[in-house]
């Protein structure tokens, strides 16, 4: 999409949000290496344009469901980075009070229905959000993010079929980063593009360059507007690439260094967008540098907040299992 057709404010929001995600993820990689972030950590570096291109079209009231690689979605949807950083550390002040961690970052206040440890598990939740939107007569949408690997999973097929037959305002966004851990895309399915699967459900399917934030923005805009108009779901496949291993600590025996370097050099979504913004005179080098500076400061503050936050108290172990108190024993301890 030509930059001229997009408000400058939106363009700068997109740039800034991609930068915030990049800085966040690289910092988390360091923190993980230092042993400060426990558990599994799956980073989003290289895929920023997908979350940002889609989210630029969403409102706070719209819903998303995310994956095990969810930090980028969370940030782009407007989540509180201090709360999520504290969650990564397992602290009391975390978005899940330290009970969820990296794979379960959520923020219902901004319509983020949760990252998910089960591949494909969140896809039907977006369908449910879409059903709720439709039955309440709202014009919001729900977007399900998932990977190429997840597109082989039952929840993908069942969820997309339900959204199609019920004409729900749901957009399915496959982040095809070309690997399901070590299994490359061409060994997962025989079709050239995940978008082709849309045909089986009688809905539109489009494939887009996921490293080009404006291209993602354009197809997402169309799909989201279509959903808002009550015309039903769309399947978007964004072809992208994760610059880091599947999870932190992945030895990456399944791909060559050259391949990774090629993508970093030629298809870095931030660099590509930056060149465009500069060439078109939308922003100056100084302005862009200031955005990086601001993002680094923000993330450092979040890290400081997380480090200084207290651990959850022992009592909290037994809290938040249920929401409605009832008679009888609810949380069992012998």
């Amino acid at each position, binding site marked *: 999409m030509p930059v001229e057709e997009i408000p400058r404010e939106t363009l700068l929001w997109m740039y800034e949000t991609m930068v915030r995600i990049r800085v966040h993820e690289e910092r988390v990689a360091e923190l993980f290496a230092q042993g400060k972030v426990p558990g599994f950590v799956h980073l989003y570096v290289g895929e920023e344009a997908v979350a940002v291109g889609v989210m630029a079209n969403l409102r706070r009231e719209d*819903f998303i*469901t995310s994956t095990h690689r969810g930090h980028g979605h969370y940030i782009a949807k407007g989540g509180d980075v201090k709360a999520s950083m504290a969650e990564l550390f397992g602290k009391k002040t*975390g*978005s*899940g*009070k*330290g*009970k*969820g961690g990296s794979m*379960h970052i*959520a*923020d*219902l*206040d901004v319509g983020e*229905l*949760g990252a*998910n*440890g*089960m591949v494909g*598990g*969140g*896809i*039907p*939740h*977006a*369908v*449910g*959000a879409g*059903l*709720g*939107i439709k*039955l*309440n007569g709202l014009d919001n949408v*729900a977007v399900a993010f998932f990977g190429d690997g997840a597109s082989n999973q*039952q*929840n993908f*097929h*069942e*969820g997309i*079929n*339900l959204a199609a*037959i*019920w004409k729900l305002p749901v957009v399915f966004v496959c982040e095809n980063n070309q690997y399901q851990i070590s299994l490359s895309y061409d060994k997962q399915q025989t079709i050239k593009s995940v978008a082709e699967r849309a045909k089986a459900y009688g809905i539109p399917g489009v494939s887009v360059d996921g490293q080009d934030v404006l291209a993602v923005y354009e197809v997402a805009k169309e799909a989201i507007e279509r959903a808002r108009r009550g015309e039903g779901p769309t399947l978007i496949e964004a072809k992208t690439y994760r610059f880091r291993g599947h999870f932190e600590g992945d030895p990456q025996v399944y791909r060559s260094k050259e391949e990774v370097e090629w993508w970093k050099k030629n298809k870095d979504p931030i660099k590509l967008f930056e060149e465009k913004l500069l060439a078109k005179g939308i922003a100056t080098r100084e302005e862009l540098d200031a955005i990086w500076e601001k993002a680094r400061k923000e993330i450092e503050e979040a890290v400081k907040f997380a480090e200084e936050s207290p651990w959850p108290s022992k009592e909290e172990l037994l*809290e*938040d*299992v*249920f*929401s*409605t108190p*009832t*008679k*009888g*024993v*609810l*949380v*069992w301890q*012998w």
Partner: protein
Amino acid sequence: MAVVREITFAQALNEALDYEMGKDEKVVVMGEDVGLYGGIYGVTAGLYEKYGPERVRDTPIAESGFVGTAVGAAATGLLRPVVELMFIDFLGVTYDQIYNQAAKMRYMFGGKARIPMVLRTTCGAGFSAAAQHSQSLHALFIHVPGLKVVMPSTPYDAKGLLISAIEDDDPVIFIEHKGLYAVKGPVPEEPYSIPLGEADVKREGKDVTIVATAAMVHKSLEVAEKLAEEGVSVEVVDPRSLVPLDTDTILNSIKKTGRLVVVDEGYPRAGFATDIAALAASRAFEHLKAPVKIITPPATPVPFSPALENEWIPSAERIENAVREVL
């Protein structure tokens, strides 16, 4: 007390659904053949005509998809879905959505989610439906923290408990024994709710406590009736809700009678019956005058042949013998 009309267990459930749908637009019913067909057990009959296809939603055979849809819809706060899963045996197809998603979201999100949904499903053998359509798998749900599990035995309880389940903000697994749908009993016309976590002493007695679930409650009552003629006084406790569990009522009964028989149609190992026996052993051991007896089916799949299936299901005779043994 005024005479109350008698209706079936299925009709009682239907009244609860009708009442909740009439009261709250957010309540929607979803599942296979729940619409025009009225549910293969007739529980949703008439709702489609009254509330329309948007709120009484027929689904394709996509159990994980539609249970997950209910979870997502509930999490948004926009709907309060009631899902019908034809047979509890099919839950494996959708188990992730129940035990990893619905059950855990609130905890993992630090208490910031509510999942107001009910999954209605059926259990129970006795119809020569064989091993994939006859199981009582409630223990699988009891096992996982974050789920409430309800299992009524009478039409009265069915109506009151389903109303409570739908109004509850947590995921509730509501298990209906297939052998009970046609059972009739007194049910008030007006809506009423029975709190989850409140057991019911279905018959008072002083010599032996039987803790029984679903269809086994009725068998135990028969046995109690019969033994009463011999002067044996049997107390029958129906927990009604398995999570939360009314341990007070169960333990008080054991303390009173000093003898316990647990009767459940679930499999014998790591099941609800062993759970209750463990409760008695750990919290009321000093009151026990005899070893606890556990009556369940054997650890085999449910057989097809009526001759074998009759043998599989705990019989009144086995319950009676167990009571005699602990006396």
